[in-house]
């Protein structure tokens, strides 16, 4: 057994952790589809899916079976390569972002110094899934959805990055582990409240959840960019959206709510509880708000959110300069 050196063991542990996080993220994303429907049911005075298994707990399995066995149709008028590529990008770019998130002091995939930048890069790549999916479908509704999506995501990614710079400045690092450690005394939600507000708004916009679901806008574009997708290709867009929700929630917790920090309970539980809170918030917002018009969404981003993030960044910078000893 001389090949089982500590280094090899470390590789195995890292692989196991990576696998666990991958599976966890995908399964949680998939489970969120059911959780969302049950919660919406609760808030809308109805049951939601409660027939498959006790309290509808096996609904997920039924849905998965169904979606795998649906006809996998590629429209003859679609651009085949891009049409196939789009859902893969949707799923992969969001899953890859989980690499940089430290769930507990021990559980993580990569401890990179470029952590936050990597997430922003992946967020940038994610736009292409909607853009390519909508454009390659050869459908006018999908095209309008893709057009809205590219406009919206570009607007919101600008200040999403800027919103996080306050956190980076305070922690003095792009490394997410160090950002969490910097919050041991005080969560960044307090000094970085403006940054938090704009980040969560941009987060909704980037994963295009309601009320920023302009690319889909069922009542207007009849599901927009993925209207031509069926079976598991649609499933990847669909689960991808929920994975995105989990990702944004996990990042919010990491950046503003002290990550795994918390009294009494083990770190992983604290992380899960905080993330769960934001997941429920995503669903609650969907249940309660109407959808603004998309040009208003744009102007809100540029005229309100962007100035706010800049202000936040400048105030943070000034405060750091003033408090740092010479």
């Amino acid at each position, binding site marked *: 057994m001389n090949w089982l050196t500590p280094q090899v063991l470390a590789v195995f542990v890292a692989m196991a952790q990576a696998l666990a996080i991958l599976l966890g993220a995908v399964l949680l994303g998939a489970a969120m589809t059911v959780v969302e429907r049950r919660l919406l049911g609760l808030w*809308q005075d109805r049951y939601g899916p409660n027939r498959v298994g006790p309290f509808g707990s096996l609904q997920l399995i039924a849905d998965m079976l169904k979606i795998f066995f649906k006809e996998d149709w590629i429209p003859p008028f679609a651009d085949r390569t891009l049409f196939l590529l789009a859902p893969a990008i949707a799923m992969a770019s969001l899953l890859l972002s989980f690499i940089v998130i430290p769930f507990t002091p021990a559980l993580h995939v990569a401890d990179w110094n470029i952590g936050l930048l990597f997430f922003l890069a992946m967020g940038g790549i994610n736009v292409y899934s909607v853009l390519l999916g909508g454009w390659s479908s050869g459908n006018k509704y999908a095209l309008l959805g893709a057009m809205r999506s590219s406009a919206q995501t570009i607007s919101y990614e600008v200040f999403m990055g800027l919103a996080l710079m306050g956190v980076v400045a305070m922690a003095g690092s792009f490394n997410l582990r160090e950002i969490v450690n910097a919050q041991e005394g005080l969560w960044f939600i307090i000094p970085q409240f403006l940054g938090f507000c704009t980040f969560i708004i941009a987060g909704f916009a980037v994963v295009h959840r309601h009320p920023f679901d302009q690319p889909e806008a069922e009542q207007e574009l009849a599901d927009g960019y993925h209207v031509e997708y069926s079976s598991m290709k649609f499933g990847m867009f669909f689960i991808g959206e929920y994975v995105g929700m989990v990702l944004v929630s996990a990042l919010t917790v990491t950046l503003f709510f002290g990550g795994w920090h918390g009294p009494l309970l083990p770190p992983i539980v604290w992380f899960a509880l905080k993330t769960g809170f934001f997941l429920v918030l995503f669903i609650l917002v969907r249940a309660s708000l*109407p*959808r603004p018009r998309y040009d208003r969404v744009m102007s809100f981003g540029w005229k309100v959110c962007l100035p706010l993030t800049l202000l936040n960044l400048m105030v943070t910078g000034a405060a750091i300069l003033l408090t740092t000893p010479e």
Partner: protein
Amino acid sequence: MSVASPSSDTLKTGPDTVVEALKQRFEERIVLEQATLTGWPVIWVARDALTEVLAFLRDKSQAFEMLYDLSAVDERLRSHRRGLPEADFTVFYHLMSLSRNRDVILKVALHEADLALPSIVSLYPNANWYEREVWDMFGITFEGHPHLTRILMPPTWKGHPLRKDHHARATEFDPYTLTVEGQDREQQALKFDPEAWGMKRRHDDSEFMFLNLGPNHPSAHGAFRLVLQLDGEEIIDCVPDIGYHHRGAEKMAERQSWHSFIPYTDRIDYTGGVMNNLPYVLAVEKLAGITVTKRAETIRVMMAEMFRITSHLLFLGTYLQDLGAMTPVFFTFTDRQKGYEVIEAITGFRMHPAWYRIGGVAHDLPKGWEKLVKGFLDWMPKRLREYERAMMENAIVRERTRHIAAHDTTEALAWGITGPNLRATGLDFDLRKQRPYSGYENFDFEIPLGHNGDAFDRGQVRIEEMRQSLRIIQQCLDHMPAGDYKADHPLTTPPPRERMLQHIETLITHFLQVSWGPVLKPNESMQMIEATKGINSYYLTSDGNTMSYRTRIRTPSFPHLQHIPALMRGGFVPDLIAHLGSIDFVMADVDR
């Protein structure tokens, strides 16, 4: 604009200056004044004088601002038309003056060899669709019409369905077949051709997108198709395409007894339930000369207002859903369910009870109805308040609907807009107040008005209308008269059962009236009511038979959809969706 409110007596019998004015001005070109039970002067006009007469009537001195209805009758098989001008076809124009609360109906006689009339689109813009419908249904051409094509029937249809020689039933022609070529032909015929509508495909160096919104689209509220000419998301122009829900209700009326047509009326505005029965049975009762008991009238009012509430609740839920709020529709459907529990207990059915009868209603109120109605009255007010607070006061809802698809009263009248959509512009015109029917004059309620005539006001007015309907129902509950639920009249259908149990003669009479249905004297009558979506009326022509000779169903949603392009040019796709949600239409009410 204020509206005179004469009592219902002067409305029916009082002297009408319009006839005198017309006779003075046009002399022998006014052919005849026909006596009918419509309640309005019916004047036959020579064809060459039509445009002049209409222009004169629309003018300020006469102020007939609205073309309320325009349709035709195939007179060729009509046997009782003594004293009327010779005609194979008659086209009638129903004009309304809302400022003077007066109507007038003009008729023009046409002969088979020369079925043509001048188009009046330049005088009344909403004549456009009505003239297309007359061409589609009767084959009468309108010279100068901008786009005289089929509107309700498929473009490939042969013949004109409301002509008396066109078959009425599937068994009267060959079985339907559809070959691959036939299918291709049909689909090709549905393909939109921008040039045919005078639209450009390109503008400068950019190409317009032509987008089919519908006939299957989540926000089209039924089988409704709108072809949008888009520059980005801006709507340059649009063309509504209706007829996908056409069932030929007016043709069916010519093959159903007076009694057995009642269930068809339920399905005209399918969210309006028994509200649809009301104008029909009232018009039939005018022909039959039946006076309904106070109890029957009050029951009818109560159930009609129940349906106004359930229809408005459906409107409210879908209107907010079209704005992207997913939750309210579940709440309004819960309320609707509460309403349907009452409706079901009283009528035995939910959406389409077909419960009104010629001379009354189908049966008396069941034991314990007061408790059910009271439960509903207690439930609703706090829910309406909640909708206002959660949604109508919401900034996003306001931003999506304020000043969207707004129009003023003058424009509304020119396009034939009625009902809450008209009142949202601030005009106080509600038939329940201005021309009371079925005892509405005995109730104490207010008419909610808007100011801006935009998508927001159209929603807000309807919430307020529900409150007023609750008030009316409360008064029905408090003051329900005792007495019979059916009129004691030989033409009441089905006749009261006690009348058949006397001897063989009464049994035979009963049997004939139930199997053949009542025979009504030849005449014409019409009744307008303030239905859920606007003014709905039935114009019945009896030829002394067990069936109607011609039933014209004027529905509010038809002109409301015609108005869409005028409002939406320059708007965005989301504005169009907000406007569609705020109109409150169902396609069955448009296509009939």
